[in-house]
């Protein structure tokens, strides 16, 4: 197992906690517009591991041609992306306060313009894997060695276009494409088992020709190992990350209603207390 160095591990863990605090803060600032709290909290470790231990990028050069790409295909978890980009130096902390506000660049889903560091606008389900395939294929065509990471939801995998993309990835031997499934078992209306059962996602991705690995989506060591041990064998990689929707805030965990909701002061304070204040608390 490829474990992160202690300082990287600590950085990732702290970043995940900060991401959760940022999510709660942005949701509070969003007021009646609310936020996708549950889906953001479930991918905190995934996104933090990517931005603090895996992705190659330069916040001062967001359009660097050779940078790794990160597509948050489950675009409704945009607060995770905003936190990661802000804390990585793409834009100042004060911008987080404007989430979903009038004239704010921070829309409720990753926008096409106005936010440095976003590699592609998402939010309508089903686009990330095939778009990522295009980016990965471009790298092969141009002889560049960047990797494309696509974070998807398990509900999002209801969309057939995602599986079309997996077929494309396998056909064109896109071993520079890494799909991470935030497998939290819930979607908007109810549990995935009720709406559209996922069944065995690892088996499905394997049947589609992917290198497949299952991890605990909140275990930084397992995530780091999976993300840094991508096989270069002509096949895309799928990491099925078992997560808990709303992870970190007990009254939100596995609760369908926290897919998207507003945060009253009482809930905000209870949630922040559950996550812990940290050095950079809001």
């Amino acid at each position, binding site marked *: 197992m490829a474990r992160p160095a202690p300082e990287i591990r600590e950085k990732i863990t702290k970043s995940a906690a900060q991401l959760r605090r940022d999510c709660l803060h942005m949701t509070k600032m969003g007021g009646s517009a609310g936020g996708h709290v549950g889906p953001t909290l479930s991918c905190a470790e995934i996104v933090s591991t990517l931005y603090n231990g895996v992705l190659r990028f330069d916040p001062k050069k967001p359009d660097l*041609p050779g940078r790794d790409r990160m597509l948050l295909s489950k675009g409704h978890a945009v607060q995770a992306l905003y936190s990661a980009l802000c804390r990585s130096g793409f834009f100042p902390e004060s911008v987080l306060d404007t989430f979903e506000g009038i004239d704010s660049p921070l829309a409720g889903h990753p926008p*096409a*313009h106005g936010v440095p560091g976003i*590699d*592609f*606008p998402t939010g*309508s389900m*089903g*686009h990330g*894997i*095939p*778009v*990522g*395939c*295009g*980016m*990965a*294929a*471009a*790298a092969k*065509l*141009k002889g560049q060695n960047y990797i494309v990471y696509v974070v998807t939801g398990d509900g999002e995998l209801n969309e*057939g*276009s995602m599986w*079309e*993309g997996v*077929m*494309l990835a396998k*056909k*064109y031997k896109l071993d520079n494409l890494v799909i991470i499934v935030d497998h939290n078992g819930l979607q908007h209306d109810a549990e995935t088992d009720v709406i559209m059962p996922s069944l065995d996602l690892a088996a499905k991705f394997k049947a589609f020709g992917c290198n497949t690995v299952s991890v605990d989506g909140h275990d930084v060591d397992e995530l780091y190992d999976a993300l840094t041990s991508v096989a270069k064998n002509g096949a895309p990689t799928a990491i099925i990350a078992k997560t808990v929707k709303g992870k970190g805030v007990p009254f939100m965990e596995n609760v369908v209603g926290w897919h998207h909701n507003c945060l009253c002061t009482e809930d905000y304070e209870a949630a922040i207390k559950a996550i812990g204040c940290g050095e950079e608390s809001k």
Partner: protein
Amino acid sequence: MNQMKLTPEQIREWGASFNWRTMFTNSMVLMAQRDERIVYIAADLGRAFGYGTFMKKFPERTFNAGIAEQSAVSFAAGLASCGLVPYFVTFAPFAALRPCEQIKMDCAYAGYPVRIVGTDSGVGSCMGNTHYGYEDAGVMCAIPEMTVISPCDATEIFKAVEALADYPHPAYLRIFGGDIPMPVYTSDYNFEIGKAVVLKKGKDVTLAACGNMVTSALSAADLLGKEGIDAEVINVHTLKPLDCPTILNSAKKTGLVVSIEEHTVCGGLGTQIADCLAAASPCARLYKIGLPDTFPLTITHRENWLKNFGLTPKAIAETVKKQLK
């Protein structure tokens, strides 16, 4: 990139020898030789357009997504985001409707120069309603920041493919199946996206046509001329952005604009012209000739459809005479 200089012999050869589909692929080959960013994406209908010619020369720049148009368009957008210029090619209904949301979000909203090429549009085949491109141009026109081009003959197909190589916006290119009608252009000309071309000056009526109906409009103008009616014929190759000044200039002169398209009258060229005329001071009446707002329920050849829908030169001329009375 400068426009390639075309000789009259080349234009004559293209007009005489090829059908629309083959001409498109040949245009792609010519352009790909000049521009290494150009990529061809098929959706299991590549053989219908002779894409083997392209694939043989540029195997690494040819992709086939299989019967999966939505991911094909997203894939194209991913390629475009990394500096490539993809042309995604399939039959018009599958090019424009099936991946409509991907065109809207991944190409137009994201702002990437993907070319969606819808061939066999109109009622050009006997394959039935699933394969007719009835409303493709209108749907594409409704997407913000999408450019829509409908070339009128072999030369203009090449011109459009060439112009789109350096064009920074996403675009829909509407191509017909079957044989190329009487060529419109016999010598080289300067093609400019968004700039309509007055092919014949006149003063009594404006015939504004696109695609294969430009030839029909010219033939109708000839017939009208024999009866003393002086028709002005405009090739509106770009439906969006529409060259409103050229249309208005003609409309103010003639007082009657007749739009002609092998496309539903809902949303296509006629509708774009209506928007243009409606916004100006009252200067002309508009009459739209196109496919009616109904599905054709029997199967027949395209020539019969054109007769049924009033899209032959003779029928167009008769309609114009009625409108002038």
